[in-house]
């Protein structure tokens, strides 16, 4: 399982890459894509949608099930990665490259975990 140290993580298995103090990219972690299995459909949020930390922002579908994606922080969606609509497998192949959406006016980021704490969280969840 890969957990790049430069990223932040939510317990609900989303990663956050800050591109400035108030802007970030959000994607699904390696742990999440592995647990979900092969992804076959991605339902992205609308641009300009309000992300509220801890609430469902979009969903992904694997061969096993449909799963909600939770907003790891609050903010406003500025851009969605439309490339994933035709190629959801990119999330499996390159989870940290395949960002789902970008946010501006980011807030509520205090509870994000660092890589080490997230790995520990995954270990606990696995047991």
């Amino acid at each position, binding site marked *: 399982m890969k957990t790049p140290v430069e990223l932040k993580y939510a317990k609900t298995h989303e990663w956050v890459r800050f591109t400035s103090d108030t802007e970030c990219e959000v994607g699904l972690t390696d742990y999440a894509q592995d647990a979900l299995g*092969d992804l*076959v*459909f991605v339902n992205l949020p609308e641009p300009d949608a309000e992300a509220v930390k801890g609430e469902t922002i979009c969903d992904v*579908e694997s*061969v*096993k*099930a*449909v799963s909600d994606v939770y907003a790891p922080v609050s903010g406003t969606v500025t851009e969605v990665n439309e490339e994933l609509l035709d190629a*959801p*497998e990119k999330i499996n192949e390159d989870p940290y490259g395949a960002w789902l959406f970008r946010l501006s006016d980011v807030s509520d980021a205090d509870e994000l975990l660092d890589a080490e704490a997230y790995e520990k969280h995954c270990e606990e969840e696995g047991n």
Partner: protein
Amino acid sequence: MKTLFDRSVPGRHCSILPACDVEVRTPAETRSSALHLPELSETDISRHYTELAKQTFGVNDGFYPLGSCTMKYNPKINERAASLSGFTNIHPTQDHVQGSLKLLHTAEKYLCEITGMDAMTFQPAAGAHGELTGLMLIKRYHELSGHPERTKIIVPDSAHGTNPASSAMCGFTVVNIPSAPDGCVDLERLKEACGEDTAGLMLTNPNTLGIFDRNIQQITEIVHAAGGLCYYDGANLNPVMGIVRPGDMGFDCIHLNLHKSFSTPHGGGGPGSGPVGCKKFLEAYLPGDRITEKDGVYSIEQRSEESIGAVRSFHGNFLVIVKAFAYLTALGKQGVPEAAQNAVLNANYLKHKLEDTYELANKGICMHEFVLTLEGLKKEIGVSAMDVAKALQDYGIHPPTMYFPLNVHEALMVEPTETESKEMLDHVAEIFLDVWKKAHEDPEYLHGAPHHSPIKRPDEVKAARHPVLRVPLHD
């Protein structure tokens, strides 16, 4: 297998039409190209469909333990009843066909008695359609009681996927609450989720792990105290029908799956039927017409203006109701609970035979179904629930439901139903144990299963990402 188009030979046909004995007129505008129709003899067509039929697997072919689906045997007497010309040669707008109205009226009475409801509509054509209808009743109730702010439906995470989907379709916001480890409702989490915006709760009982929630009355009381209503998803009624009633558990409205508990054909053999029952205070909102009886004469009466309006034409899938009614009358007041008890007995018998080998998601007595988790097997030797399910096909039985409920990893959900004999359950237990043994001896063999079915292992990912749903035609 070849398609009808592959089998087509130009000029070949079935000689079933007599020669044309009227003047042939050609319309002014006609198609400029030929129709793409396969040309075959009756023998070719007949063999094609028989070959297709041989590749299918139904409850008439063998054991079909699809958990949460209640794939019980469909008695032939049901079909006989539904083929009577008095039922098939009538029209819904025909006046006062007493026999059919009496059947609908009596079926409503019986099903209300079994469920503890006061009234029922037969319009919904399937379970999820029933869910939507029931939720529309709840919505209408809150709107007319001056509480349009009640917009949230609470759904436990072990619920059938249709519950949150139906809630969303009905314009509600879904509040997911995590279940306790036994799959039952976590009362504290439920209390936290309830509030002034709660429209209601959707629940199956027994739950998706096959466990009867002992706190059910407390659960419905908590929701009622918060001002919400309680919806019973009838998918798991089979083990409790005729024994406990959702109405007595505190539910306000319900749907039934006649194609599950009441033995009408399920899946591709449908159509289904998802009648919705409710307590008196919701009756005015029910869709469709009401059937009333006075001095032995039955008539059709329009519901009040408060009705949510039709959700389907007339009385829904009428002949399916005839089949369910045949089942109910064949079993009677004694037979209905007996069927439920046998469903529970069969599930526990099979569970007992497997529990020393396979790992159970929950120990203890189950209701009509039990869930195995193959997480340990997958970690240990890399054989997944999918591999085991595929291997079972080679023994001529249908695999159980896979990867559901979602809160159990590598789940296999087994529901034998009451219509299987002890001999069959013994045979099935041997098959499961044999697959377990093979998995340890030769995991690769299981990765490649099924080895003997007409279709091996389809590429599910490719099928989902790039579905091919039609045959390209060539000019």
